[in-house]
């Protein structure tokens, strides 16, 4: 897991803002997918109101999570699969290592899975001598480049074709090209060999179905299908909240997922997998293991104000419209979950004080709430996190983030409850500001604490007479 602290966020943000390649990539991404997703919701037979239905389905599932997970586990075991409940990342990783040891796994192929990044699975496997190959093209690219993902759905969006061309020619020994089809073909060739040789295939789970006992995987590339079909063991990592009760819930959720993620009607490949191959089948894995992970989710579930954040289906629609993410990219968030969902989830998972920049460094513009296919009210939760940082919170072990600021707002609260004091404050401000540099009636530089504004913007000074004063004069 990566380090998260203020300096990291602001520094990474600055770096990202200066990275013209990344800026153009993010702009293109948001210009393309933001409006397209909105149109896609409107194209639903039930209209965008379907999102509220989806929200209710997800909340209902969370409220019955104990029943759903027990049912899911029971069904999968009946179908010959193994199910393991892991309270934290270490437990989950150890289970995977044990299975790998027992089956003499030397090489694994992996579909994109945020949960496995959250628990640092790759590192653990590699430390134990197991070769891990990311197979989602974007993940493969950043694995070669030894970087982290900058977007939930398109992890290598920050890299240009030229950069990828150079990377491939260095690491794969192919002649340099910057043609995406040729580069894709090169990756296809290399990874095909891995798929066919791998001892273990690892995937996440998009949304399990308790009623039928299936996990589901969603992709466009076919890499998850390959990873879950060709190796002799298929290992699935699933955040405990990624389940719904009934098959009929999937109809609505998959339609919304595809629209939220990439403005499509349906993703290229969706697979329902209920366990290993049966005795009468010619192909498919011999063994199937489902690891259901808590790792902080239960605490979120227990808090009714935050429970809603677990309805997320990881489509990244919120990233595609967030003005902050659109400038700072995924790396600044310092954790696999970036964008608005990351701004709420990460503090709840790694510590609210530790990740305070993530929930304070947002404009609360509300675009995420409008874009979310399951109608998640992220701005409400961001405000709640800010309230905990302002006054501290015992349950979530939050310390007051900025005691000086608290004092300032306490003073402010006195000021605004007394018009005379407020007038005095305006008056004082009017006189003090006379020493600030100005030009053409606008202030050019404000003192420390407010100078962030004037680094790039002018500001109008406090007026000589307030509106209320002018009104008083007029109506005397």
């Amino acid at each position, binding site marked *: 897991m990566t380090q998260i602290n203020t300096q990291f966020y602001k520094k990474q943000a600055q770096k990202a803002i200066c990275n013209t390649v990344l800026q153009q990539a993010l702009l293109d991404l948001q210009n393309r997918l933001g409006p397209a997703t909105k149109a896609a919701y409107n194209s639903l037979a039930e209209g965008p109101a379907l999102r509220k239905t989806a929200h209710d389905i997800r909340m209902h599932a969370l409220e019955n999570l104990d029943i759903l997970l027990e049912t899911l586990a029971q069904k999968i075991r009946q179908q010959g699969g193994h199910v393991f409940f892991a309270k934290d990342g270490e437990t989950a990783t150890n289970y995977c290592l044990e299975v790998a040891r027992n089956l003499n796994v030397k090489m694994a192929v992996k579909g994109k899975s945020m949960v496995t990044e959250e628990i640092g699975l790759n590192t653990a496997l590699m430390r134990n001598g197991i070769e891990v190959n990311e197979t989602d093209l974007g993940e493969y690219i950043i694995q070669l480049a030894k970087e982290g993902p900058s977007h939930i759905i398109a992890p290598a969006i920050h890299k240009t074709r030229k950069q990828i061309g150079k990377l491939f020619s260095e690491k794969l020994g192919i002649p340099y090209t910057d043609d995406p089809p040729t580069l894709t073909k090169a990756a296809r060739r290399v990874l095909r060999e891995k798929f066919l040789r791998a001892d273990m295939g690892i995937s996440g789970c998009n949304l399990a179905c308790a009623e039928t006992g299936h996990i589901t995987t969603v992709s466009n590339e076919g890499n998850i299908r390959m990873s879950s079909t060709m190796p002799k063991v298929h290992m699935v990592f699933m955040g405990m909240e990624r389940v719904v009760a009934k098959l009929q819930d999937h109809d609505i959720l998959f339609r919304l997922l595809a629209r939220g993620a990439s403005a499509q009607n349906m993703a290229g490949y969706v697979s329902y997998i209920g366990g290993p191959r049966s005795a009468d089948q010619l192909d498919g894995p011999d063994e199937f293991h489902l690891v259901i992970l808590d790792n902080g989710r239960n605490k979120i579930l227990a808090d009714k104000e935050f429970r809603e954040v677990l309805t997320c289906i990881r489509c990244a629609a919120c990233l595609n419209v967030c003005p902050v993410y659109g*400038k700072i990219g995924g790396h600044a968030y310092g954790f696999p979950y970036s964008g608005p969902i990351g701004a709420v989830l990460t503090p709840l998972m790694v510590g609210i004080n530790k990740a305070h920049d993530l929930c304070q*460094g947002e*404009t609360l*513009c*509300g675009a995420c709430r409008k874009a979310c296919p399951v109608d998640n009210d992220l701005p409400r939760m961001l405000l709640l996190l800010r309230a905990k940082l302002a006054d501290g919170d015992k349950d979530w072990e939050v310390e007051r983030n900025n005691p000086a600021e608290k004092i300032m707002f306490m003073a402010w609260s006195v*000021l605004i409850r007394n018009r005379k004091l407020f007038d005095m404050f305006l008056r004082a401000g009017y006189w003090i500001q006379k020493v600030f540099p100005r030009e053409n009636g*606008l202030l050019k530089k404000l003192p420390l604490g407010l100078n962030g504004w004037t680094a790039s913007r002018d500001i109008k*000074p406090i007026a000589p007479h307030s509106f209320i004063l002018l009104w008083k004069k007029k109506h005397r």
Partner: protein
Amino acid sequence: MMDKTQPVTLFIQCLIDGMYPEIGEAVVRLFEKLKIPVDCPLDQTCCGQVAYNSGYQKEARMAAKRFIQLFEKAAVIVCPSGSCVDMVRHNYPALFKDDFPWFKRALSISSKTFELTEYLVDILGIEDIGACFDKKITYHDSCHLLRNLDIAEQPRKLIQHVKGATFIEMKNSDKCCGFGGTFSVKYPDISTAILEEKVDNIIESGADTVVGCDISCLMNIQGMLSRKNVSIKTLHIAQLLAGQ
């Protein structure tokens, strides 16, 4: 339909009160033009939004209580700021959800607090104020106004009825300008980067004036336009409609 000539009580917004009183005066002129009496509680200060958004709910509650006490006798409250109306309409009831008597009072006041363009178009049914402005205008959708209050058509209708004005939609008019309250000074690099894109879109539109309904956004945008020596002017919708 409300009585069209009933007096409105003015909720002026602290930024306009302290920094842009001319906008407040434009609002008054506007209602004078419409022959609607305006009264203004002289003790008003701030709706508390700045504290609320920074997480200081206790302090925000104090501001809310004061506001409710000052304004609850009004028949109708009008404010030339979307974010402030959002604060009263949606966040005041939320602030008092565990305090039933205050919750009731908050609900009552939230039902009669309107943003300026919302009041003109939806309540009074007026789209043509009889204003003139011989320039190319583009419009910035402020976030809370657009997404929390669902106000988008009303300002546009009003602008489009201004004689002599050419209305041009800018690219991504609904994208945030990067103000975000204290965000603009706490995370200035990110705020600036977001604002740069907004300013680029404004310039690209070819307009010479950008109109908005929230002075906080306009202040942010104007700040960069003047720093970059761009001659495009910002104008609050009240100023556009009342004439300067």
